[in-house]
């Protein structure tokens, strides 16, 4: 009995495959469009998920609290004296001032991120040298005057041709010379690609920031469980200051890539539009050829349930194959081609572009999400036409 059932199922599968092969141009075009839609959705899902994962892993080590001064809705320099006002708050281990900002290179049309800080004051600052591909980190302020460490893209964009010196303009257009003392490793590109790291005095001189002011203050606390409490106390002590905690920064990267972004919405809408067209085509009626085929099958003794089974097998084969092809192509696109199709939107007009080395983690939930958006609506859209086709009276189709 079981053998008979298996043979029947295999025969139905054979018939469904033969039917798809008979209409191979139509089947192939549906398969390709379907696979392209899945490729688009899966690529977006994989890119955003890989970036969110990377952010979650590395941003677990951001400063515990970051303080920025706000004035008239904009961020502005924060007085160093604010750091001294925090001395009374119990639990703060240290406050490290930083000067950082953006330098627009008008010749190369590139934005550099300039970061000025005393690395010896930062946690693990002493180990930064081990992350460099070449050279050393600048030491304490006096010795390291004018010495910088640069990211890979900065080195490539400046095209120094063996030189280790370059100059940047101050706000008054006078030139400030720098010497490259080290380069960040390509492995850390996703964080350091556009960075020029120098000491605070050099950054102050470059940006023309008056003494006593810095860009922000990094606050480190003794007990990580007290971060929220200390942040609240800082907010009360310094009302004009925006207090960003580590958890807020991490949360940002869990929501910053999502389906609600413009590009994400376009991917979803494109997929939806494709399915609506497909469903419309399927549900709008049977072709005379299809009606004739069904009628012949019925005359030959096929039951309605058999015809329904053939039609549903056809849908499962097309949607299953499209899913495998689309998701495999998406993985290859993201991992081996660095999401090349999305880079124009992901990086826009950026001149400095890191090698992302994305490696998506394919969780069952992500696969189910893509299946829920693609295969399940397709199967649902083909149920009614399959039933309609199965209930066609044989005599009417054959013109009797």
């Amino acid at each position, binding site marked *: 009995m079981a053998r008979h059932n298996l043979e029947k199922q295999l025969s139905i599968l054979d018939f469904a495959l033969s039917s798809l*092969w008979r209409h191979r141009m139509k089947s192939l075009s549906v398969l390709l469009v379907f696979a392209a839609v899945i490729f688009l959705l899966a690529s977006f899902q994989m890119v955003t998920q890989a970036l969110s994962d990377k952010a979650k892993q590395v941003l677990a080590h951001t400063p515990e609290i970051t303080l*920025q001064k706000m004035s008239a809705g904009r961020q502005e320099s924060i007085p160093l004296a604010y750091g001294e006002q925090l001395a009374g708050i119990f639990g703060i281990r240290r406050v490290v001032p930083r000067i950082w900002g953006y330098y627009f290179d008008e010749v190369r049309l590139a934005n550099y991120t300039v970061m000025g800080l005393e690395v010896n004051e930062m946690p693990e600052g002493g180990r930064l040298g081990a992350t460099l591909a070449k050279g050393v980190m600048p030491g304490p302020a006096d010795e390291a005057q004018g010495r910088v460490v640069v990211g890979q893209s900065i080195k490539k964009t400046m095209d120094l041709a063996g030189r280790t010196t370059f100059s940047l303009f101050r706000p008054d257009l006078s030139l400030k010379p720098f010497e490259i003392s080290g380069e960040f490793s390509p492995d850390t590109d996703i964080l350091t690609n556009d960075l020029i790291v120098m000491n605070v005095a050099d950054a102050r001189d470059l940006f023309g920031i008056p003494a006593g002011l810095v860009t922000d203050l990094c606050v480190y606390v003794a007990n990580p469980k007290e971060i929220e409490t200390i942040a609240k106390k800082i907010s009360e002590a310094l009302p004009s200051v925006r207090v960003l905690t580590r958890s807020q920064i991490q949360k940002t990267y869990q929501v*910053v890539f999502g389906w609600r972004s413009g*590009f994400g919405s376009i991917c979803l809408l494109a997929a939806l539009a494709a399915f609506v067209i497909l469903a419309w085509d399927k549900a709008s009626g049977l072709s005379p050829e299809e009606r004739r085929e069904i009628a012949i099958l019925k005359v030959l003794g096929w039951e309605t349930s058999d015809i329904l089974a053939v039609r549903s097998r056809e849908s499962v084969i097309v949607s299953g194959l499209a899913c495998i092809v689309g998701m495999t192509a998406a993985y290859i696109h993201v991992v081996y081609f660095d999401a090349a199709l999305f880079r124009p939107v992901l990086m826009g007009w950026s001149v400095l572009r*890191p090698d992302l080395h994305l490696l998506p983690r394919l969780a069952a939930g992500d696969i189910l999400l893509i299946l829920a958006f693609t295969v399940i609506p397709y199967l649902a859209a083909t149920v009614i036409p399959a039933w309609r086709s199965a209930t066609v009276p044989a005599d009417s189709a054959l013109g009797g």
Partner: protein
Amino acid sequence: MRPALRFAMFLCLLLALDGALLFDGLSRRMAEYATLARLEVVTRGLGLTDLAVATEARYTRHPAVSDPVVPFMDHPGAIEHFPTGAFWLPPSR
């Protein structure tokens, strides 16, 4: 050869390709663990708050420390015009 068998062979070929990709992914994952330690030191040592993916606009270079309203701050009635603004959502704060 019956069509079901031919289809099964084609399916096996596709799954073999996926298996090869899976194995390559595992070896890449091992290499990624090695670089993760470096990334952690850089993040702690420099106090970094953001990924250096999009460098064209300050609100997509540093979304974690920017205001959601920053794209519209340049002048009254300013519209957001950088391409990366289509990919990156403003942080909800």
